[in-house]
C-alpha cells in the first residue's frame, strides 16, 4: 500500500519517540555497563527534545492520516506538546533521581518513551481502536515503571495494585467501545457522531450504557472519584520520578481522550452523560481535598491533591461548550507544570532510598536549600491558586466557565474546596520557613538536570500566570476546532 509522506509527518513525534526508545534498548544490550546508563539518559533527552521540535513540523501538516484514524488539529497539537514537554521534565528529574537511588537502568527511559508514544497516539486519535491501543501502551508502561524499584516492597505492591485495578478499568472501557460500535456501527468518532444523529430514537439507552462504561474506564485513569481508591497507594509506592510521570502526562492524555469522545462522538447526548461528570467532579474535589488534609507523606498528599485537581478539570468538562474545553486545556497545562515542579523538588530532597519524604523532614529547610524551597513554594502557591501563578488563572477560567453555563452549585463547591486545599499546601510552606528543623536532612545530591527541571517548572508556572495570552489564544482556537467551528 502506498502511504503518502504527509501521513508520516503527521505522526512524526511518535516516530521519533519510538525510534529513540528502540535505540535505547539496543544501547542497553550493547554498550559497556559503566557508561550505558548515562548514555541512555542522554539519548532519551535528545530524542524527546527532537520529538518536541517535530511537533512544529506536525503543526505545518494539519489534517487526517491513516484512513481518518489520526487527526492533527489544534487540539491534538496542544496535547502533543504538553505530553512531550512533561516527559522531557520527567526525564530531566529522573536522570538525577535514578543516580541518587542507584537504580540506573536504561529500560526506565525506554519504557518512559514508549509510554509517551502511547499518550501521543491517544491525543491524536479519532478512532476508538487507536485510542484503546494508545491507552494500553501508556498503561502497561506505567505498570512496569511502578514496580521499577524492585528492592522496595512498596514499589512492587504499587505495581501489582495498579496492574490489577487498571486492567479491570480497561475492560470497562473496551466494553463501552463495543457497545458504542453496536449502537452506531463505527469506531470512528466523527462517523459515530453522524450516525447517532441519524438514528435518533431507540439507541438512547444503549448509548447511555456505553458512555457510562467508557466513563468508568477513563475516570479510573485520571483518578477521578469514585474510581480514585488506587491513587494514594500507587503514588506512594512508586518511585518519585514515576509518580511525577503518572501524575502529569497520562492524566493530560486521558483528559484529551475524554474530551474528544464525549464532545465529538457523544456530543448530542450531553444531557444523558452530563450528570455523571457533575457527580464525579463534586466527589473528586471533596474526597481529594479532605483526604489530603491529614497526610504527612508528601507523595501521598500530592496523590490526594491530584484527585482534587482531576475534579477541577471535570468542573470545566461539565461546563459543556468551548469555554469549558479551553478552560480544561489551560488548567491541564498549569497543572502539569506545577505538579511536576513539586515532584522535582521532592525527588531531589528524597535522596537515597527516599529517606526524606515526610512533611516533618521539610521543617527548616527553607533557608538551607533556597533553590529547592523557592521552587516548591512557587508550585504550592500555584496549586492553591494564588494570583500571578498559572494555578490562579486556570481556576479562574474553570469557575468562570461554570458560572457562564449556570453551574453555580458546582462552582461554589469548587471555590470552597480551593479554600480547604489552601490549608495543606500552605502547611508545606510553613514547615519550610517557619519551623525549626527536627530531622537532620543531608545535602541533596547536586544534579544539574534536576535543577533545570525544577527551575523550568517554576518559570513555567509564573509564565502561565503572568503572560498567558499566546497559550490562551491557541487554546481557544483549538477548542473551537474540536467542537467543529
Amino acid at each position: 500500500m502506498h502511504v503518502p509522506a504527509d501521513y508520516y509527518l503527521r505522526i512524526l513525534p511518535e516516530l521519533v519517540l519510538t525510534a529513540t526508545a528502540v535505540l535505547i534498548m539496543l544501547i542497553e544490550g550493547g554498550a559497556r555497563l559503566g557508561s550505558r546508563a548515562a548514555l541512555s539518559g542522554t539519548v532519551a533527552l535528545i530524542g524527546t527534545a527532537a520529538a518536541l521540535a517535530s511537533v512544529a513540523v506536525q503543526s505545518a501538516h494539519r489534517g487526517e492520516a491513516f484512513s481518518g484514524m489520526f487527526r492533527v488539529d489544534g487540539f491534538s497539537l496542544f496535547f502533543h506538546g504538553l505530553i512531550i514537554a512533561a516527559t522531557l521534565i520527567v526525564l530531566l528529574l529522573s536522570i538525577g533521581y535514578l543516580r541518587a537511588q542507584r537504580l540506573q537502568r536504561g529500560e526506565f527511559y525506554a519504557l518512559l518513551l514508549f509510554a509517551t508514544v502511547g499518550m501521543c497516539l491517544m491525543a491524536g486519535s479519532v478512532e476508538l481502536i487507536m485510542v484503546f491501543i494508545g491507552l494500553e501502551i501508556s498503561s502497561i508502561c506505567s505498570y512496569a515503571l511502578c514496580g521499577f524499584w524492585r528492592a522496595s516492597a512498596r514499589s512492587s505492591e504499587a505495581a501489582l495494585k495498579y496492574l490489577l485495578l487498571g486492567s479491570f478499568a480497561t475492560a470497562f472501557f473496551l466494553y463501552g467501545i463495543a457497545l458504542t460500535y453496536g449502537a452506531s456501527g463505527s469506531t470512528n468518532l466523527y462517523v459515530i457522531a453522524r450516525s447517532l444523529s441519524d438514528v435518533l430514537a431507540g439507541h438512547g439507552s444503549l448509548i447511555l450504557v456505553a458512555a457510562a462504561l467508557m466513563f468508568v474506564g477513563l475516570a479510573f485513569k485520571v483518578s477521578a472519584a469514585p474510581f480514585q481508591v488506587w491513587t494514594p497507594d500507587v503514588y506512594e509506592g512508586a518511585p518519585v520520578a514515576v509518580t511525577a510521570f503518572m501524575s502529569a502526562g497520562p492524566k493530560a492524555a486521558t483528559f484529551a481522550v475524554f474530551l474528544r469522545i464525549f464532545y465529538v462522538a457523544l456530543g448530542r447526548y450531553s444531557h444523558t452523560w452530563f450528570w455523571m461528570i457533575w457527580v464525579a467532579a463534586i466527589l473528586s474535589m471533596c474526597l481529594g481535598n479532605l483526604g489530603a488534609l491529614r497526610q504527612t507523606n508528601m507523595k501521598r498528599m500530592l496523590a490526594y491533591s491530584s484527585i482534587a485537581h482531576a475534579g477541577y478539570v471535570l468542573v470545566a468538562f461539565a461546563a459543556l461548550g468551548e469555554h469549558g474545553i479551553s478552560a480544561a486545556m489551560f488548567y491541564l497545562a498549569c497543572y502539569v507544570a506545577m505538579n511536576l515542579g513539586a515532584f522535582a523538588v521532592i525527588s531531589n530532597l528524597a535522596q537515597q532510598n527516599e529517606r526524606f519524604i515526610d512533611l516533618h523532614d521539610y521543617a527548616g529547610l527553607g533557608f538551607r536549600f533556597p533553590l529547592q524551597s523557592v521552587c516548591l513554594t512557587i508550585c504550592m502557591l500555584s496549586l492553591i491558586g494564588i494570583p500571578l501563578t498559572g494555578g490562579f488563572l486556570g481556576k479562574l477560567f474553570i469557575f468562570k466557565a461554570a458560572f457562564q453555563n449556570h453551574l453555580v452549585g458546582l462552582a461554589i463547591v469548587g471555590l470552597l474546596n480551593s479554600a480547604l486545599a489552601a490549608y495543606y499546601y500552605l502547611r508545606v510552606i510553613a514547615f519550610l520557613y517557619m519551623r525549626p528543623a527536627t530531622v537532620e536532612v543531608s545535602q541533596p545530591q547536586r544534579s544539574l538536570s534536576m535543577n533545570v527541571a525544577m527551575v523550568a517548572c517554576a518559570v513555567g508556572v509564573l509564565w502561565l500566570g503572568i503572560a498567558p495570552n499566546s497559550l490562551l489564544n491557541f487554546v481557544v482556537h483549538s477548542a473551537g476546532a474540536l467542537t467543529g467551528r
Partner: protein
Amino acid sequence: MYPVLFFIFAGLAVAGAISLLVQRQPIYSALSLVAVMGALAALYLLLGAEFVAAIQIIVYAGAIMVLFVFVIMLLNAQPAEAPGRSRVARALGYPLLGILIAELGGMVAAHFQNVKLTSGEYVVHVAQIGDALFRSYLLPFEATSILFLAGILGAVLLAAHTEDEAPGKLYIGEAPPEPNLIPYDSTEGSTTYNGAGQPVRTDLPAHPSSEEVRS
C-alpha cells in the same frame, strides 16, 4: 442443521464456563477453559469466520492454554479452599442473578420469533482480513507491535533481577529490616527515622533470596 450445531456448541461453551468457575482444582479449571475455547472456535466456523476460528485454536487453545497449564503445573497449585461466603453477597447475589436470568430469558423469548439462525452468508476470506489489516487498519496494526514491545520490555524488567535488588528487601520511608543490608552512607540514627510514625512492617514474609544474601 445449523441451529442444532449452534445449540450444541453454545451449550458446550456455557457448560465449560460454568465448570471453569466451580472446579476446585486449578488444572480442571484450565482444561474447562480449553473446552470453552474449542466450542467458541466451532461457533466462529459456523458463522463463516474460518480465519478467526483457526486463530482461536492456534492462539488461545494452543499457545495461551499451554502456558496456563505449564504455570499451574510448575507452581504445583493446590486445590482452592472455599472462600468464606459473606451473608451480604449471598443475600444480594442470588436475587440479582435471578433478575439477570429472568431479564435475559424475557428478552430472548420476546425476540425469538424474529431471530433467524443463519450461517455462512458472510464468509470472510483471509485476503480480506489482510487487506483491512494492512490498509485501513495499518496504524493500529503497527501501534500494537509497540504495545507488545513495551509489554515484553516491562515483563523482562520486572522478572529478571540481580542479587542485590531482590524484591521486597527494602521498605520505603520506614526503618529497614536490617540496616547493614542497605547501602546507607550515613549513620543509623538518621536512617531509621520512621516516617509519620507508621508502625514498622514486620509481618511481611521475607523473600527467599534475601535469606541467601544474609547468610
